[in-house]
């Protein structure tokens, strides 16, 4: 059994973020990074499968040198092997670009199971997992709260709006994107951290994965136009009164603005 876990390194949740000069990304100098919280749950789920039986857990992350820290943390927690995809050519990829890179890694590894977070804490796109599954041609489930082995695959409980749960069965190989909080994530132990020094970490480029010219800003269909802090609004008006009065007034305003 082989499990591939996709880890994104994101700015620490308490980091103070400033927008860069070009206005399309954040200034990365001097801020602390951490593993995307959703991905830590995915990793923990993989490690539990490993603890319960036999599995090789391979972690992959795309990004600059700093992401090796995320990969080392994962190795310290118990993952067996790490793949660092590092290539300036990948910078500026859209979600499809990232999904292509991850799918290419998955193709080389042919895992029985891909585990990843439902979304990233910074980008919030929730797009990479289903795209990656499509590119791999495997079934997937997102927002998974619980995954249990069932027959030749996994029975997944997905969280729906309003707290309802949906149960889907996925045959292996498959991709599961987890919701946060489905387990209690372990800490890396000092022994694990020491052992991780000897675990392999491969570095791959877009070219190694056969993706030269396909990913990165050049191949991106979506491009970040600008990033900015919300502008403080002016002239907000609070309408008071009974529900009927409020609705009447509100509709009046909308009509007044010619929006209806």
């Amino acid at each position: 059994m082989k499990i591939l876990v996709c880890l994104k390194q994101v700015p620490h949740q308490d980091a103070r973020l400033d927008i860069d000069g070009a206005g399309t990304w954040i200034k990365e100098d001097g801020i602390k990074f951490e593993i995307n919280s959703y991905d830590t749950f995915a990793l923990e789920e993989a490690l539990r499968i490993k603890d319960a039986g036999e599995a090789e857990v391979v972690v992959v992350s795309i990004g600059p040198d700093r992401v090796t820290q995320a990969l080392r943390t994962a190795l310290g927690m118990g993952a067996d092997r790490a793949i660092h995809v590092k290539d300036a050519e990948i910078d500026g990829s859209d979600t499809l670009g990232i999904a292509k890179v991850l799918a290419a890694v998955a193709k080389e590894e042919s895992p029985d199971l891909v585990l990843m977070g439902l979304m990233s804490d910074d980008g919030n796109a929730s797009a990479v997992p289903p795209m990656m599954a499509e590119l791999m041609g495997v079934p997937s489930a997102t927002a998974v709260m619980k995954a249990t082995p069932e027959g030749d695959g996994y029975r997944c409980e997905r969280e729906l709006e309003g707290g309802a749960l949906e149960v889907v069965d996925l045959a292996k190989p498959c991709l599961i994107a987890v919701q946060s909080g489905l387990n209690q994530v372990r800490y890396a132990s000092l022994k694990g951290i020491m052992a991780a020094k000897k675990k392999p970490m491969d570095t791959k480029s877009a070219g190694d994965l056969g993706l030269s010219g396909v990913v990165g800003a050049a191949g991106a269909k979506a491009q970040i136009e600008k990033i900015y802090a919300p502008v403080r609004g002016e002239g907000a008006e609070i309408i008071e009164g009974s529900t009927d009065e409020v609705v009447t007034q509100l509709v009046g305003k909308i009509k007044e603005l010619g929006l209806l």
Partner: protein
Amino acid sequence: MFEGVDFMLLDEELADEEILARDTVRNWVTQEFMPVIQEHVRKDGSFPMELVPGIAELGLFGANLHGYGCAGMSNVGYGLVMQELERGDSGLRSFASVQGSLCMYPIHAFGSEAQKEKYLPAMAAGESIGCFGLTEPDFGSFAQGMRTKAVRKGDGWILNGTKRWITNGSLAHVSIVWAQTEEGVRGFLIDRGTPGFEARDIKGKFSLRGSVTSELFLQDVELSEENRLPEAKGMKGPLSCLTQARYGIAWGVIGAAMACFDEVVEYSRERIVQGGPLASKQLTQAKLADMFTEITKAQLLAHRLGRLKDEGKLHHTMVSMAKRNNVDIALQVARVSRDLLGANGIVDDYQAMRHMVNLETVRTYEGTHDIHTLILGEHITKMRAL
């Protein structure tokens, strides 16, 4: 988010695993320890024993020892771990210091193979807690004056005496007790429940309330020769343990100082006094600049000390200098922080006063500030002070 101070870019001197170990323990302290410490200190003065399995799982007990279930970290890595623990509370670092440096270390260094097998893996796993009994009611700084006696009886020993100020005394499954014998000072391992042995807690502490401190009573305690640490001979035995623990303290207190500094910088930026933030006042900035500088100097001292220890070039007088200096500046930082917090500084919603009163203990134990002054004085002059 607690980020610590790294003005001289010491992170660049650290190995990946040292950074990872530090950051892991930092997260653990933030998430598991900070939420519970206030209650333990406030209510009854106890150690959060429920955290022991977690601490053990992280591998923090005896982290710089090799084999027997220990992590085998570098000494700098170990120091960083102590720093992060004391960022939480000196009581937390004390717990780990006593377990690792004062109990596991002597068993590792002076124990028989059977003793190592029996105690070390269980202690690394946090299943067995240790305490270190050197100080007595009448002998602290001058420990060699100890009255606790061990006399041979057949193949074994009989021990009598009292030890006081013993961290984790009543929690311990095994107590390492140092006693006078006809051949000089020797170390003994006393398992919990041994007849004639009793531990009672010391109440009413203002300082280190998040740690248990006890008195040990030994009345005709019968031990076999297997309970003695075979390789510990003379005061060198306990003193070498103290060098290990003092090393950890030199790092640990930087954590306490950084906790106070972190808190007071944030506070002074928010607190408005006479038309502006407290942080904008020249007097405040002078205080903060001093704290920042002293913390950075302490880090440089600890870092160099750690690398020397890894290279086997450490002399105990170097540890004395670092323990003396770093505890002193940490206490200063805590006091000034407490002051800058104003009235808020005296309540336990803020950390400064807890660290400040803790550091009074740290200044006293493991060789008082004065004793380290005398050690350095003797080193310089080659004359023992009168």
